[in-house]
């Protein structure tokens, strides 16, 4: 599904990623762990298409398509979803209307008619019930005055509505208390199936106790320095990132 080949990225003069190789197949859950500043968020941003980065070498293929050629919106249409580490507040735009515009943009790209209001409401109802989201939240402006948990849950709600093939969860666990983490993680699990894939970016083992990864990669100084299965997370938890650094 996703194939990253020898990816080198820099911001201005600073090299952030220095030769990333990563393959994700459908149905898989991958976790990328690593200390601050190792390039985790850059990797998620570059997959989603954020501007301001320069790819100096390498490529990203998504279902055989050269992803780097596409605009962020086109990448979303192809099936890539990014759950933001810091979801932005957008006063004046309600979640409901935002997601409605998003879904209809997807449909327009596929040459489909707009979704009817009834269908839309049904879908919103189904997913908000699934995730246990307070309906009032959906009529408020995006993330404005939301708690950390509400912001992250809203991201997952959008993921549920847009049904991506590959969801990148950028530090979805940060800033959440234990209860909020459980709710968000359960929500993500309920959306996982054999056809889609997850890329979880995190500092901590915590979220991976709920969402069990098939593969764990350790990113350090712009390179994947270690890959393994979920046992690697236990080892990291025990020994800390210093263990990687001295390796």
């Amino acid at each position, binding site marked *: 599904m996703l194939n990253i080949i020898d990816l080198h990225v820099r911001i201005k003069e600073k090299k952030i990623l220095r030769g990333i190789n990563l393959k994700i197949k459908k149905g898989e859950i991958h976790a990328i762990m690593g200390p601050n500043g190792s390039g985790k968020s850059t990797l998620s941003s570059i997959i989603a298409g954020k501007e301001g980065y320069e790819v100096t070498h390498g490529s990203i293929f998504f279902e055989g398509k050269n992803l780097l050629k596409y605009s962020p919106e086109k990448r*979303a249409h192809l099936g890539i979803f990014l759950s*933001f580490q810091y979801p932005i507040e957008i006063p004046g735009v309600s979640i409901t209307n935002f997601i409605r515009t998003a879904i209809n943009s997807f449909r327009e790209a596929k040459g489909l008619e707009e979704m009817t209001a009834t269908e839309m409401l049904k879908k919103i109802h189904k997913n908000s019930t699934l995730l246990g989201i307070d309906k009032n939240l959906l009529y408020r402006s995006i993330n404005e005055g939301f708690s950390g948990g509400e912001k992250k849950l809203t991201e997952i709600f959008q993921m549920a509505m847009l049904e991506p093939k590959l969801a990148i969860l950028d530090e979805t666990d940060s800033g959440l208390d234990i209860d909020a983490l459980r709710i968000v993680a359960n929500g993500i699990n309920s959306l996982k199936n054999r056809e889609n894939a997850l890329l979880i970016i995190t500092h901590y083992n915590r979220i991976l106790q709920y969402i069990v990864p098939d593969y764990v990669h350790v990113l350090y100084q712009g390179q994947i320095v270690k890959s393994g299965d979920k046992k690697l997370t236990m080892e990291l938890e025990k020994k800390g990132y210093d263990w990687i650094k001295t390796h």
Partner: protein
Amino acid sequence: MIDIKKKIISSYFKKKIPWHEYFHTLRFDAIKTLKKKVFTTIEAWNIPLLNRDYMFSHNTSIEWKDIQPHLLYTTDSYRLVFVNGVYSARFSKPTQRYKNICVFSHGLSPEKYVYIIAYYAKLSSSQDGFNALNTALAQDVAYIHIPDGLRVEHPIQLVYFSSGVDSHYTLIFPRNLVILGKGSYAEIIEKHYTLGSDIPLSNSVTEIYTDTHSHLEYFKIQNEISKSSLIDQTFIYQKFKSKCSISTFSFGGKLVRNNLHIYQRDSKVCSKLNGISILHGKILVDHHTVIEHAYPNGKSNEIYKGIFDDKAKGVFNGKIIVRKEAKKTDAFQRNNNILLSRKTSVKTKPHLEIFADDVLCSHGCTIGKFNEQAIFYFRSRGISEKEARAQLMFAFVQEVLEHIPIPKLKKHIYEIISKKMNVYLNFYL
């Protein structure tokens, strides 16, 4: 310049408008002021508008089909239509039953004239050149008088068309007098539109009186074509517990100047001023507001939002005066601007003069650009950049739009904005 002055004065005498003696005196006084003042005002405003060879346009060969698209309501509404400053009876829907929504010069009895004298040209400063020019030359005056306790069931439309030909510079003098009796309620929508190929300058003056417990919602839609100019001066005199809301929507023109002057002349008065300017092209929109709190427990709330593209320029000058007696005044003012191009500019100036103790006054102004992170957020959800920008623009002005109490008007404003941004939004945010 002398020529223009002569032309203006002689044209007045040529017209021989049948007026009450009082108004003749007013006009003569105005002409006298005009001789001294108009050009100094113009210099102070830095408006090179009168330095032209103006004509008085009389072409009224316009049809219902020409004006109909510009009317928000064709039924269920009162309306006064003016073409080149002249009242057009055939396009209007006035009333004199229980209330007056009509014109001075048409069918008013002498008793009514006497009543009007107590109000007409009492608020507009005779020392101001543009006011004097209007008082001297306004021909048909829109007169709205709502008696005590009456709630006007339909919005009132005041529509000013210009229809000159051959790229002539034309002068139009819209003049409105609005009097709301005790406890009455009215909604007024004022619109200016150029139908012809002329280059009009509208010099408009509006005087508004809101009596005890009355409530007025007044909307100014300034969606002019790029060569037209509008100088609008509106004066509001508010009495005990009256509420007055003035919303100004500026979407086009060459030069638009809005001078709003609110006099709170009793306690517990509430004034709201809202403005949205969305401008593109070579245009200057200048908002000058003055709110004068002179009595205790007065409230005022002012929110102006501007989006400027291309070479558009904006000015916001918001003055709030709190007199010594105006204790417990609650005044709020905000002006937010977004600049979309490097060639645009905005000058914003909050100006608070507070002479009373125990007041709550706050103000703020911002000038910035769109949040690129927000745009990326939209795009990462499959929404195109163009639509993302449009939605952010709507979100930016939403705060003002959501307070429009007339659904049809709200829809109309949404449509104008959508059209300006060349996007179709199938819902209201």
